[in-house]
């Protein structure tokens, strides 16, 4: 099992790497297109601001590599957002893998949404052995609109897509690597895909 974490200079990749290590897997950091293409599983992380992260992705040429990957790919947090069509954050054009747009929370609630919230309407093997309304850890100011590719939803003032799937591409807004044993189960499920 070769797991690659895409290393393009945006995000807290150490904690993802440690989470896989706790599960008994070595996840390797790489920005090499060949290595990424030949991996069994690919993690696309991301933390920070969308337009600068997208710029880093373009500089590395990986914006052309990721959408063509054939193996299971898991975008986490900003990684998931960059897999969508557009983001209101920095008027960013994303990879358009998912047919969803990223909007800013604008409903009078505290932003960022920070902490533990439930995921419901679970519709994927990614959530095998999870219960409806299990808690996941989230930190974000922007969200994906609920859409047909949604495989889990969360409510924060409004109901949005907490996870998306299209073919071999998966994206989660929450941080499975920081979501206790439930998050670890999701990573195990991803490895088993």
């Amino acid at each position, binding site marked *: 099992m070769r797991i690659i974490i895409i290393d393009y200079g945006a995000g807290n990749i150490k904690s993802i790497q*440690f989470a896989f290590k706790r599960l008994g897997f070595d996840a390797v950091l790489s920005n090499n297109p060949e290595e990424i293409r030949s991996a069994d599983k690919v993690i696309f992380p991301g*933390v920070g601001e969308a337009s600068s992260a997208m710029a880093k992705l373009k500089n590395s040429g990986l914006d052309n590599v990721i959408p063509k990957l054939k193996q299971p790919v898991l975008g986490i947090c900003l990684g998931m957002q960059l897999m969508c069509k557009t983001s209101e954050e920095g008027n960013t054009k994303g990879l358009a893998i998912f047919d969803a747009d990223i909007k800013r929370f604008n409903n009078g609630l*505290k932003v960022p949404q*920070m902490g533990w919230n439930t995921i419901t309407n679970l519709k994927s093997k990614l959530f095998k052995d999870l219960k409806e309304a299990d808690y996941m850890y989230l930190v974000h100011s922007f969200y994906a609109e609920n859409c047909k590719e949604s495989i889990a939803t969360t409510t924060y003032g409004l109901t949005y897509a907490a996870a998306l799937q299209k073919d071999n591409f998966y994206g989660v807004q929450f941080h499975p*690597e920081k979501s206790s044993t439930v*998050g670890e189960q999701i990573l195990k499920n991803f490895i088993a895909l």
Partner: protein
Amino acid sequence: MLTKRIIPCLDIKNGRTVKGVNFINLRDAGDPVELAKQYALKGADELVFLDISATLEGRKTMIDMVLKVAEQLNIPFTVGGGISSVEDVDVLLKSGADKVSVNSSAIKRPELVNELASKFGTQCVVVAIDAKQIDGNWIVHLAGGSISTELDLFDWAKEVERRGAGEILFTSMDNDGTKDGFANKALAKLSKSLNIPIIASGGAGTMQHFVEVFKAGKANAALAASVFHFGEIAIKDLKEELRNNNIEVRL
């Protein structure tokens, strides 16, 4: 629904967990990595590590401890104490910390908050504020609470929010170590004036105090140390009590 968070705070000195009563008279309460794992198992939502000696003695936060904690912990954690530059934060985040908290360094050079927010994102920038009431005004203090500033708590909090803080950790020095409850009036005012989450700190003694800090104090999260470290309040019992009071928690 987004839950209220319970956050044990591990004050660190020389690699060991300590808790100051009104910031002096330290008592030893164990190894931080072991304690962190225990707290994750017991249902803590998040942890904060504060290197309390860092600002006073100019010590840097222990990168080794952060790495060891990150390796073993499956919930988020914040590291604070002695952080004064983008480089300091870069090393901590690369070692696996999820968030950093800045305090005195932001008071001395407020642009630091902007720099951190633009480089790493607002989500990982916690601004910690220690304040106490002087002649009816909440006055911000620095260097572990030992030096008074001219800053008003509410003005300063508003300013750091504007500069890109993702969260405020407000410690009432009047309440800290008293076990008489949180500074709910000031917290509620702070919560109303800001659009970012607020972590309440200082004064936890009973489970009822946590009920009050979420209801009256409008806090998004509550932080405490000794009541957890010395087993006076079990996190599971606390969360059940909160749920019985119709406060949303992760159980």
